[in-house]
């Protein structure tokens, strides 16, 4: 037992990711943690999206299953699992069967390189960002397969739209990413990096998130990426492939039950994945806000208290809602459940105040908080914007975002190389 604890301690003190250290055991633990965390995040996102959207739309959202509908996603998942597995008679069986798995696989595999902290990643690949873009674009294959195998008109159109959309927005997305990568090479050695951890470390050494770098170039690149990533994940206002009012449900019209839930899972984890790319590339990944302006041990302490206070705040909201619950005996179980949930959150919050935990969890907290902000944006867009038409979507992708991306890339390169250009070519 003692040896085991020592083993854990020795790992925690090392400064390498398990993949880079070749430690299979820890890599496995990390994979498990990421998988569970992601599933929980998707479940939470499901509930949050319905709640937030509902409150934007003067509704209450789920209220019946559990206090404030907290158990609704679980009930839905259960329902989907026990639903009859329907495969259309004319469908191409194998392709129909394999399509959701490809989509899920692509959506989950990208998390191998997502850096939750300097050492908190499954592995640190030297081509991390390339790997992420490459694998996440594999999901289009699954979508096309799903649309084709369904052997039905609406899914086919949905799949065609989806593939065209994802392929064309990948170009703009790639250009924005390249301009961020260029920024990593602005050091004395001129060595850029594609590693996700390296990109964040470059922001750390340059003392600036890339969104503020070469203002407004970084901001524009970030904007291009932020637009492209919504299109990439087929979310409103670019949700044409699954445009409910036009194509009923797009490429997954013929899917139901568990297979459908896999598409759902993949969509949400893809959203989290692209948000983590954006956070890593432009928003400083795991770095806390204002690492340069608000320095010193006091600010370090203040910022490291954030995780605990967040959980305490959530717990406080739970307790507030508990107090507001109807006093009728029928609500007793719900009230107790909500109080218990609040208590669990408060307990986690208190644990997070412990210095040992606090300092180790801080990176993960800031990363997740930034990703959560993106998730909120996704919901906000969905509540605000109408849907683009297909040709307009293509126009935005090819005629606006692509030239913008190219321009930003060239400008970033020029500005970045300016000292060199000044030395060698330009002698006023």
């Amino acid at each position, binding site marked *: 037992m003692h040896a085991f604890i020592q083993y854990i301690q020795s790992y925690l003190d090392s400064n390498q990711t398990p993949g880079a250290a070749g430690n299979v055991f820890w890599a496995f633990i990390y994979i498990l943690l990421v998988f569970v965390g992601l599933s929980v995040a998707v479940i939470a996102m499901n509930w949050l999206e319905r709640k937030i*959207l509902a409150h*934007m*739309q*003067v*509704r209450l959202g789920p209220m019946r299953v559990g206090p404030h509908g907290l158990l609704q996603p679980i009930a839905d998942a259960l329902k989907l699992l026990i639903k009859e597995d329907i495969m259309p008679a004319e469908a191409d069986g194998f392709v129909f069967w394999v399509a959701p798995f490809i989509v899920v696989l692509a959506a989950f595999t990208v998390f191998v390189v997502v850096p939750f902290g300097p050492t908190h990643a499954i592995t640190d690949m030297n081509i991390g960002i390339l790997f992420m873009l490459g694998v996440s674009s594999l999901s289009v294959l699954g979508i096309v397969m799903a649309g084709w195998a369904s052997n039905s*008109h*609406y899914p086919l*159109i949905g799949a065609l*739209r989806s593939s065209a959309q994802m392929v064309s927005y990948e170009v703009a997305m790639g250009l924005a990413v390249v301009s961020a990568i260029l920024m990593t090479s602005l050091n004395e050695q001129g060595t850029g990096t594609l590693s996700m951890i390296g990109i964040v470390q470059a922001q750390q050494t340059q003392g600036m998130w890339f969104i503020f770098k070469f203002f407004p170039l970084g901001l524009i690149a970030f904007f291009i990426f932020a637009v492209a990533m919504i299109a990439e994940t087929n979310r*409103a*206002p670019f*949700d*044409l492939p699954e*445009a*409910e*009012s*036009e*194509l*009923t449900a797009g490429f997954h019209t013929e899917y139901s039950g568990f297979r459908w839930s896999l598409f759902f899972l993949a969509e949400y984890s893809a959203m989290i994945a692209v948000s983590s790319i954006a956070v890593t590339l432009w928003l400083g990944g795991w770095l806390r806000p204002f690492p340069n302006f608000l320095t010193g041990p006091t600010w370090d302490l203040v910022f490291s208290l954030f995780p605990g206070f967040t959980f305490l705040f959530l717990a406080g909201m739970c307790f507030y809602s508990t107090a507001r619950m109807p006093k009728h005996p029928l609500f007793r179980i719900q009230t107790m459940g909500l109080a218990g949930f609040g208590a669990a959150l408060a307990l986690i919050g208190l644990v997070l105040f412990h210095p040992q935990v606090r300092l180790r969890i801080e990176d993960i907290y800031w990363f997740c908080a930034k990703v959560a902000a993106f998730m909120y944006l996704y919901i906000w867009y*969905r*509540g*605000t*914007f*109408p*849907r*683009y*038409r*297909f*040709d*307009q979507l293509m126009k935005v992708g090819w005629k606006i975002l692509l030239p913008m991306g190219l321009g930003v890339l060239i400008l970033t390169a020029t500005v970045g190389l300016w000292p060199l250009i000044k030395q060698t070519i330009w002698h006023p």
Partner: protein
Amino acid sequence: MTDPNTLSPLDLETPEKPFLDANELVINMGPQHPATHGVLRVILRLDGEKVLGLECVIGYLHRGVEKIAENRTYTMFNPYVDRMDYVAAVSNGLGYCEAVEKLLSVEAPPRAQYIRVILTELNRIASHQLWLGTHALDIGAITPLFYTFRDREEILKIFEKYCGARLTTHAFRIGGLQYEAYDGFEKDVKNFLLFFAPKIDEYEELLTTNRIWLERTKKVGIISGKDCIALGVTGPVLRASGVKWDIRKAQPYANYKNFDFEIPTGQNGDTYDRYLVRMAEMRQSLRIIQQAVDGIPEGPIIAKVPKVIKPPVGEIYHSIEAPKGELGYFIVSDGSTQPYRVRVRPPSFVNLQALDVMCRGQLVADVIAVIGTLDIVLGEVDR
């Protein structure tokens, strides 16, 4: 719905297509489809996403309302008309009651006229709200639907207080009103006016200058005023094409000549103009209601009509400006207690004819937008 006589001024011939064209995809949209506003079935011929042509198949909601009329007395048929355009039931009732009154040569007393105008205009707002919500939902903006439904509730509350029903109100009787206005009716209506005027701005804030909304609605589903007249299209669709035709002004009925209001028109005849026209119409309706509620006279609410309505032999056509266009009733009386024939000219049915003209050459997504902008109610199309 393809009568060659009515379609001759328009070029509705399908373009020549080579035999066995592999590019063409025939899609059956509806009758069960989230965006066809009921049980409309549209057969789309597509080239990729482009619409080569379409055909509407209707009749899935046919209940034989006109035939039912022949077996009911005039009074008994009155509630049935509410079930045609169920989102604008009050207008339907107004049209029917006025037609029968014309046949009987009676006129509703002034108090009844004023309350009729208030309720009808409230119903016009409710109908436009429902249109706005569903139209925006079809185009992908979810939120306006809930905003409009939240505010429509206030109108429905007034209806409920007035006659107990929210949707199929049966608010009027031949010769006047079904009920005297309840205590506080005027106050409720005035409160609604104060409440609703800023809400229109709220809807407009979400949509009118929204880039995506502009792109989705401008130059979509264009129809010229000439085509509208040729196809018999009326209502906001006609007015958005630049034709200043509103039966409330052109052939005033139900006291409308006493009220001061404008007919909003558009120029381009596209989906965006139709949107603007309907938004402006809501404001004009508020103006009319304001004038009406300020000037409600005292007096009887129903004219002296016999208990058993037996109009003299004859026929009558009476039309009103329903929220969706010209709603006409053609009633033939054989002197008995039951109409010999009732023919309804529903605006939705006639406006739906324009769908093909408006959609040809556009994309699939535009078909949805155009169905939304035509503001059809299938209960009225099929009757």
